[in-house]
């Protein structure tokens, strides 16, 4: 087995949780984790070019999207295909009702404290657009969960 370089190990330790959470937010637990694993495998195979990228996480996010894309044929918007009763059932139903970008923005910013710019770089849109997705996502979640105090 080829030894994994120290630089890659360091990259992996930092990128793995971020990529996994982002793609799980986008595609659900099973598909999101699978997409993240494929993207990370790609990063190892193409480490010499990935290590020189300015925005490797954004690139790998799109790699993960492309790896899971064949299952999205004929879907104009992507939603988790199944509601996974990992946490409160009402919450997962509400989350599944959001668009992919709304889920990514709400999960990463409110769940993990990412900045708008970090999410913007990840999904390739402007910070303003991220804010729009965030507001819409949070409004829909609050409405679905009837979290009136946060409106």
């Amino acid at each position: 087995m080829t030894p994994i370089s120290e630089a890659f190990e360091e990259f992996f330790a930092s990128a793995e949780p971020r990529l996994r959470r982002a793609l799980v937010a986008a595609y659900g637990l099973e598909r999101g984790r699978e997409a993240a694993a494929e993207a990370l495998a790609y990063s190892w195979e193409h480490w010499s070019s990935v290590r020189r990228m300015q925005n490797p996480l954004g690139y790998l996010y799109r790699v993960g999207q492309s790896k899971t894309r064949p299952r999205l044929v004929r879907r104009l918007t992507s939603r988790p295909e199944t509601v996974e009763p990992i946490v409160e059932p009402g919450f997962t139903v509400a989350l599944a009702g959001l668009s992919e970008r709304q889920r990514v923005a709400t999960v990463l910013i409110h769940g993990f404290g990412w900045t708008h710019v970090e999410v913007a770089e990840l999904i390739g849109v402007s910070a303003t657009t991220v804010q729009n997705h965030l507001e819409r996502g949070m409004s829909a979640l609050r409405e679905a969960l009837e979290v009136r105090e946060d409106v």
Partner: protein
Amino acid sequence: MSDLNTLLREYADAAPPIRQSEIEHRRQRRRARPVVYAGIAFATIVVLVGVVALTRTNSKNTSRVATRSPAPCDRAVACPIATGQFLYFKSDALSGSDEMWTDKAGAAHQISTLVPNHREIWIAPDGSGRIAETSGKPTFVSARDKEEWVARGSDPTTLNVPAPSDRRFGPHGLGWTDTTQLPTTDTEALRVALDRVDGGTPSPGEDFVHVGDMLRETNASRDLREALYRFALTIPGVTQITDARDHSGRKGIGVARTAFGFENDLILDPNTFMLLGEQSKVVGPNQAGRAVGSEQGWTVYLRSGIVDSVTAVPSPG
């Protein structure tokens, strides 16, 4: 808010971490298929070379037609964009930005700022393109946000100007919105199609957001833009602004929706229905604690057109 944040965190962390050994297995598995991939790649190249050779003349003709159009986005049908061409938009904005932080007791806090922003985007139908942005100095939305900033232990004078960014994207790097299939004569059909294309939970608020999404930095035809405007007027709670002005003072017609104490306006050119600008302000009591009358952000769309590269800009007018 902290409970919702916890649920969001728990959801995304429910998937087990990926181990390095796991990706090594995937890499080895993939190595067993290089001959197949090489064959597919070779065949693809052969086909592409053939297709390019056969269509080269045709592409050039298409390109010339699209480039010659003086105001392509004002056409009744969506502007034709040839391979290698990009939709271009330039805008100025004052954008809201929220930052979350958690104190030692685990309580979540939000700090909201407004950031001046200048943006240029080039986007092709394959999702490739470029976004160049520069920002000005942020300001706190309210005194409460400044207090939160200080409570976090940050110096108010360290609210720095975001660094300029200039990013280029390969295919699928940007989200291209295909507006060509949206109906322009049947309002209900348009509403249903917007739900399908743009996602979200169907509601008047979401319908209004869809209208903005389809007007903003898209290839929507004049017919579609007018249909979106007419559709907006049918959304419950949406009102017409007959003498609207965008932040730069341009006159237009507008649609406004008020919810939770905030009014959001979309302002369009009355002749072309191009989106001139959008703005948000506080018009009533709100749980965010924002002062009535305060500005929550605006955008003015200054120039748009079809160009032949990610370094070209359309001529004014």
